[in-house]
């Protein structure tokens, strides 16, 4: 019996061979260490993301998320749903808010769900993995398992948008959230609290449709990380991670910069600090390799 159990909503980007597959790998090994049991919601579907709006309309968007709620309720009644992807978490959480505040919307949703042979009786709590770590486990608990502190590594905590606004992590500010810095500290690395681009938008889906717009924003985010002497950037959001990491090459072409900074997930840092291997931390999943972490991961664990 694990200490903490949740229904798990990995989301499309975390699937095998998808853009955030490395995120999932590292989360799984992180959870093993922390004795957190995640049970994937059977046959879960896409949240529609915020970018789906043109075709989605209101009800269909919510219905998509509602289906996941229904499945979770059916297979894991009473369990909270945990998402690792910021967009999944936000999409699901928005649906939750709307359905709880509009009876019509709720009724319509139930009617549509019927077509898939499903229904919702009670609204599940939707949590982001970061919330679970901070609120359910706490920094002390997380710190306990650090056996290989990432000493001397300077890391810029890039929070981005969707884990921060409009809901955000409880008790954090929209303009200057601290939790990533605390996590960096927790794994024995060096945070950069004055990193002022920590909540700047990475351009989101515009990175695909209007790259030049998004890349202008990504440039600021990376540049400021360099200015503060960061060796790597850490983030809780798959889209942030991808956007900030994979376009550095193109940005260099456009702006003549020499960007080449690894962009990690908090979970990857934790796995390494918890004594996990480069493979457990899915460091091979980096487009820009995190050499420094690889070295540390190769070191024997201090006991």
């Amino acid at each position, binding site marked *: 019996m694990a200490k903490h159990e949740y229904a798990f909503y990995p989301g499309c980007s975390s699937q095998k061979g998808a853009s955030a597959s490395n995120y999932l790998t590292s989360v799984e090994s992180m959870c093993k260490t922390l004795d957190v049991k995640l049970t994937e919601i059977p046959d879960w579907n896409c949240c529609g993301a915020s970018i789906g709006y043109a075709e989605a309309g209101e009800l269909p968007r919510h219905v998509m998320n509602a289906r996941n709620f229904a499945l979770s309720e059916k297979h894991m009644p009473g369990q909270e749903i945990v998402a690792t992807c910021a967009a999944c978490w936000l999409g699901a959480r928005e649906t939750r808010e709307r359905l709880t505040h509009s009876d019509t919307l709720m009724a319509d949703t139930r009617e549509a769900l019927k077509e898939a042979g499903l229904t919702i009786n009670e609204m599940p709590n939707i949590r982001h993995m970061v919330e679970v770590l901070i609120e359910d486990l706490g920094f002390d608990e997380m710190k306990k398992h650090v056996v290989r502190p990432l000493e001397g590594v300077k890391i810029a905590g890039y929070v981005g948008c969707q884990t921060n606004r409009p809901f955000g992590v409880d008790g954090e*500010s*929209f*303009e*200057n959230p601290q939790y990533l810095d605390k996590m960096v500290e927790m794994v024995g690395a060096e945070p950069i609290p004055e990193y002022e681009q920590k909540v700047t938008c990475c351009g989101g889906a515009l990175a695909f449709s209007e790259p030049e717009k998004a890349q202008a924003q990504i440039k600021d985010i990376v540049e400021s990380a360099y200015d503060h002497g960061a060796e790597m950037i850490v983030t809780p959001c798959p889209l942030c991670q991808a956007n900030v990491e994979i376009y550095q090459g193109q940005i260099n072409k456009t702006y003549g910069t020499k960007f080449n900074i690894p962009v990690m997930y908090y979970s990857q840092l934790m796995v390494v600090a918890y004594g996990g291997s480069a493979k457990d931390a899915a460091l091979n999943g980096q487009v820009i390799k995190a050499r420094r972490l690889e070295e540390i991961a190769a070191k024997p664990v201090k006991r």
Partner: protein
Amino acid sequence: MTDIVATNETILVVGGGISGMTAALEAAETGKNVVLVEKNPALGGRTSQLYRYFPKLCHPTCGLEINQRRLKNNPRIRVLTLAEVTGLEGGIGNYTASIKIKPRYVNENCTGCGDCERAVETEVPDPFNYNLGVHKAAYLPNAMAYPQRFVLDPAIIGTADADRAKAACKYGAIDLDMKEETIQVKAGAVIWATGWQPYDAAKIQPYGYGRFKNVITSVEFERLADIHGPTGGKILRPSDGKEAKNIAFIQCAGSRDENHLRHCSRICCMASLKQTHYVREKYPEDGKSTIYYIDIRAIDRFEDFYQKVQADASVSFIKSKVAKVTEDEHGNPVCHGVDTEGYKRYTTPHDLVVLAVGMEPSVKGINIPGHIVADSSGFIEADPSNGAVFGAGCATNALDVNRAVQSATAAALRAIQVVNKVAKAEA
């Protein structure tokens, strides 16, 4: 003041700012006995911390001098400082208030000579200057302080500094054994004039108050301009003491905002317009003010003051709620936003950003003894169920000084109406 034994004909006034003083004086000059309770060591309240008033640009201390003279000549008023009302029992015509009095450690023998101040070494933050500066732990609250009597900061009690102060005083004015006491006062009616506090600017995250040294509040700016202030009346910015000549005023910092204060605080527009005068006064050559606003609320006859400022080339107006403030490498606060009159973007560095912070009633959150009806912003509403407890001044609404004094004068009459009935009843 001669000690009066409070009777039911007495009016209890809570708060010794301009509203409380006015209510107390107007009642006393109409022949009523008054007990005036102030939580600070001196009367005067928030207006005494202002450098100038709008629209005449005259000095609040001028009116304070007159009110203090009225007070000195009027034996009907008993003033209690360092005192707070902690309980209120009874009802119309017959209240009993419990008043907690903090020790001053200085008795009526004090001549105000200042020997104790020179003797002590400890320095503590000076609340009169919004803690922008420090003063000795034995201090006169301010140059206009009434009572004109020194105070020892509790921090030094039991230390050698306290003994130094006691030793320095030739008049036996220092009493280190003073203890906090609670007294009972009977009153027929109560006037609640506890005023307002500036909204906590740190809660307005995008403006970086607390994160950036050169983002300050409008009330703090008053102290910078005042000769009694931490800079002796020079407008210098906190980060590096550099002369602040290019100043941004951000209106509605907390007000008219459902994330903060839902109401409009009424005074902030005029206050900022007034403060542009300070900038010009101190830097006539190259002072520059920029006011970022949603609506300029220079209400009724204040309009001509607004028109004068508009005519001034050194002041520019931008119709925009600033989106956020950042800091550049020189420590200059930078305002980011959009001028909504025809969509013009700006990213403008300034020497100093002044947040025109909103008015929060001091009664808000504080549990007024007994049940008092307040509106959605926490201001006291006139309501029969308040009995003979009457709000006055900024405890009742966001008011400028003029309106606060009106409100206090009206409150005094309401209280007198009650005690007159009591008097008749007793006669």
